[in-house]
């Protein structure tokens, strides 16, 4: 029977049907052509960046030499770095709390914890801005030396990044065999030794994946950063936005390409680590 079916007409052969292939092609075109154009035009010699005139790496050099762009990138990386560390620690602790303990109103706590994921960014941005202004943190931090003047943004980024870490780490913990913990204690380890020698190594892929997720989220955040940054502190996405308003230049293409590469690499690593391990169980 099966031998008589034409290729592509089998029950699960959707992939080889023409209309489906066309649809796939169209979707990929819509999704990735803008990005590819951006990358391609970062190598363009044309100043206005609209017509292709020839290959160059000058844009990267120019972008690198642009002091304000450089400063904003360093700000962004610094913010992403610090907020990732804090968000990973807080996120992992929340994940452990939710995994390990039973307490009153736990479902409510879980819901509230995940709120920053679902709340529109704009609301969160405004809320954080109002909070910082009303508590006087806005005016205080602005005058602090670098990197302390980034404090508001870091706090804001931690607030929306840590739930992602929690979700990733917690899904990892679900597969934990509690007998490993018992075995550790039975062999003479204290709670603390068990935590560091058994539970943390088990969480590690989740921690790394969560941290990379937080890093990329923080690095390319625009809306919340826009609201919570002072007039003096500029992050990379905010800087790009202000440059674009004055007109597109290949420099921005070059800088954006760098950001895309960082983000994509981090995401790939995160996804690799998050993939369920075949040997995850003891």
């Amino acid at each position, binding site marked *: 029977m099966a031998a008589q079916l034409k290729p592509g007409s089998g029950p699960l052969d959707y992939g080889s049907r023409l209309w489906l292939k066309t649809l796939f092609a169209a979707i990929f075109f819509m999704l990735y052509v803008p990005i590819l154009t951006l990358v391609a035009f970062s190598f363009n010699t044309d100043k206005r960046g609209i017509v292709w005139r020839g290959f160059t790496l000058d844009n990267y050099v120019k972008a690198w030499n642009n002091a304000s762009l450089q400063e904003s990138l360093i700000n962004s990386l610094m913010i992403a770095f610090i907020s990732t560390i804090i968000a990973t620690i807080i996120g992992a602790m929340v994940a452990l709390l939710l995994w390990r303990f039973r307490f009153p109103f736990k479902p409510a706590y879980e819901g509230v914890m995940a709120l920053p994921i679902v709340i529109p960014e704009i609301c969160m941005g405004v809320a954080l801005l109002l909070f910082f202004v009303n508590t006087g943190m806005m005016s205080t931090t602005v005058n602090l030396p670098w990197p302390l003047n980034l404090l508001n943004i870091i706090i804001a980024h931690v607030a929306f990044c840590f739930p992602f870490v929690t979700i990733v780490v917690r899904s990892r913990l679900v597969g934990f065999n509690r007998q490993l913990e018992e075995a550790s204690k039975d062999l003479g380890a204290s709670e603390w030794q068990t935590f560091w020698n058994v539970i943390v*190594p088990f969480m590690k892929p989740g921690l790394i994946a969560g941290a990379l997720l937080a890093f990329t989220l923080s690095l390319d955040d625009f809306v919340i950063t826009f609201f919570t940054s002072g007039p003096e502190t500029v992050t990379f996405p905010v800087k790009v936005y202000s440059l674009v308003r004055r007109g597109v230049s290949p420099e921005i293409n070059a800088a954006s390409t760098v950001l895309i590469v960082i983000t994509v690499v981090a995401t790939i690593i995160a996804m690799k680590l998050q993939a369920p391990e075949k040997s995850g169980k003891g």
Partner: protein
Amino acid sequence: MAEPIVSIRNVSKKFAGNIVAVDDISFDIEQNEFFALLGPSGCGKTTLLRMISGLETPTSGQIMIGGENMALTPPNKRPTNMVFQSYAVFPHMTVAENIAYGLKVTGVPADETKRRVAEGLEMVKLSHLASRKPDQMSGGQRQRVALARALVKRPKVLLLDEPLSALDAKLRDEMRLELTRLQENVGITFIIVTHDQDEALSMASRIAVMEKGAVQQIATPAELYERPANRFVADFIGKVNLIDARVLAKKGKTVTCETQGLGKIDIVTDQTCGDKVTIAVRPEKLKISKAAPKGAKLVAIEGTVRDVAYYGDTSHVVVLAKGGVELAVNVQNDSREGGSGVERGQKVWVHWAPQDTIILTE
């Protein structure tokens, strides 16, 4: 006799919702015993083992290990180590690191740790796999890692929670032998939890049969099998024919019973019994013959063969006695020709020696 190594005194364990897992158990385990806790699932045997290890706290009662009350001793300070049902080998550590773990966390010096790990690997014959990760090993090998990891700690008592249940049949037989040899070599008290009566009978020196959180009987394997204390034990250990009966007369060691379905039977026993009893006979104690047996002392019952199941070495024959009772008989197929020698529908006599009958009062 020396002081018991483990002493359980009126131990009870209640879980949330007032579920009684272990109900007022008291017994002692002697030095160097291979002790088995045997019972159906949910009988509380694992809970009892976990209370000995300290992973579970008794609701009431005391557990003494080596003469010391363990009430306030956490699992990491107890002289016991456990082999878990899932082995619980640490997946991120190599075999050698797994075995060294218990020594490392308790601050045993590095060179001594190294020596003891090598000894441990030797003991379970895994020296060639020392740097493997557990995910590259078979279930049997992981089990050995778990064993070595516990034994290098040199515990006073080794606890084994269903250690063979996750292995396939052939490996299980091998491990059974290996465990008993290991126990003789290291001279440590082993306490094993199992639901498999064959496992308990073949390995243990003493067995506690548990049901519904209580100990039904503690005895050697042979005693459990031949002299079960009650109906549950008789039925749980091995196969048995159970017949309700009423005692009519006692004369010396001979008890005359009126059985349900089998008529009057004379039994020779040194047990005392009440009026209502259950009589029990193991299938291999029953014999089948085609004519009425000659020996006057034998208990003989006439019936029809209902089923014959051929097992190679034995055949399990079910005989429907005249009174409507089914009797299971195990026949040794001791010659190549003829098998059990009976076939379905055949009229036969079933007989046994009166002293092979067990009288159960409960």
